[in-house]
């Protein structure tokens, strides 16, 4: 079964190399032992951003207004749902479904498109592992130690081998 899965992932990845690079900036706000909000800020690479800005900043003022924000959310950002927003949560080693992102906001910063959204977790963050990656290999999610903000916690970023793609893992102590 695993071999068939690996083969099908491999075959679907044959059409792709990473074409979009996304820097992921997680900010963790612990509210209690069983409630944590993680804000994710995705910063898309310069080339992809320039193409998207041409399309999405319809009035060309270099800012994303409310109407443009709703359009980006409904037409573009919601497409990532099928890919679990390239974000996977594990609590005590068990996979859990990614909660629906809230407070979506698109901005333009230094010629780059940024998507910001919150994920509300109802678990102790110290038992939670967050992984990032695209098994289709079309998007490369990039996480570095310096991108993580987690006051009062020790955050650890490592690379993770997921059979047919390489991703990043974020865990806390």
């Amino acid at each position, binding site marked *: 079964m695993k071999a068939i899965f690996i*083969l*099908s992932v*491999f*075959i*679907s*990845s*044959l*059409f*792709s*190399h*990473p*074409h979009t*690079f996304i820097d992921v900036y997680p900010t963790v706000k612990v509210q209690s032992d069983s409630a944590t909000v993680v804000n994710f800020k995705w910063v898309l*690479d*310069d*080339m*992809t951003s*320039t*193409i*998207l800005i*041409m*399309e999405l900043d319809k009035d060309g003022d270099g800012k994303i207004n409310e109407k443009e924000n709703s359009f980006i959310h409904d*037409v*573009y950002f919601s497409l990532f749902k099928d890919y679990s927003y390239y974000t996977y949560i594990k609590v005590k080693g068990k996979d859990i479904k990614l909660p629906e992102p809230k407070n979506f906001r698109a901005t333009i910063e230094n*010629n780059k498109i940024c998507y910001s959204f919150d994920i509300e977790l109802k678990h102790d963050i110290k038992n939670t592992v967050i992984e990032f990656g695209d098994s289709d*290999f*079309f998007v*490369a999610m*990039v996480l570095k130690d310096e991108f993580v903000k987690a006051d009062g916690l020790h955050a650890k970023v490592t*690379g993770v*081998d*997921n*059979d*047919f*793609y*390489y991703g990043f893992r974020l865990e806390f102590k």
Partner: protein
Amino acid sequence: MELYNKLLHTLVGWQYELNSYISTTIRSLNDENSLGTSLLILGIAFLYGLIHAAGPGHGKALVALYFTSNKSDYKKAFKMGYMISVIHAISALIFTFGIFFILKTMFRKNFNEFSEIAMLISAVMITLVGLYLIYEAYSGRKHKEKKAKKSSKSEVAVAFSAGVVPCPGVMTIVLFCIVLNQFTLGILAAIAMSIGMGLTISLAGIFSIAFSRKAGGFLNEKTYILEMIGGLLVFSLGVFLLLATTNLS
């Protein structure tokens, strides 16, 4: 598996750096530094293409499988790699300029829809090439000279079926240049990147030929068995790509 993933991860890391370097360098272009900077951009685009094609891609898989099934020399592998890169570049330029100037909006969405159609064409063609190779191996098992003439047709079919899917990486660079009013640089960068990709694809063919020579020697006069297996593998690749494409849409 672990080694393969580590290699992919390293390649992704290099592409991440090169992608950022290319965009920064294109943005830094001005009247005073145009020649030197343009040449630098073309050099990086070539390198980017070389590394970009080293990741998973159906072009390399097809070329590698094709050459296991065909008694060829290394020159043919180079020729094939470059036929694919020329078709790849033309396809990317037609798609980019077509979507940009004719449709004007929704580049990403239109691009996804058009590339799905191109993927479908590619998958159907690869399946047909596989069938043709099986037929060629079967009918040519006693008529080697006749077979050699037929092969050039299948080479063009293989190059077209691998190259017709425009590379989003090439399209992104072209479009980025168009948005920054660097039309000529965009076209030249697409060509430079495609040449880089062609070289990597050629290498896949060369490795495959080296392998099939060894296996062919082992099989002695019965190389048509290897050709038949190669044809079946190309056919299977086409069917799997067809399934993957129809699942995507």
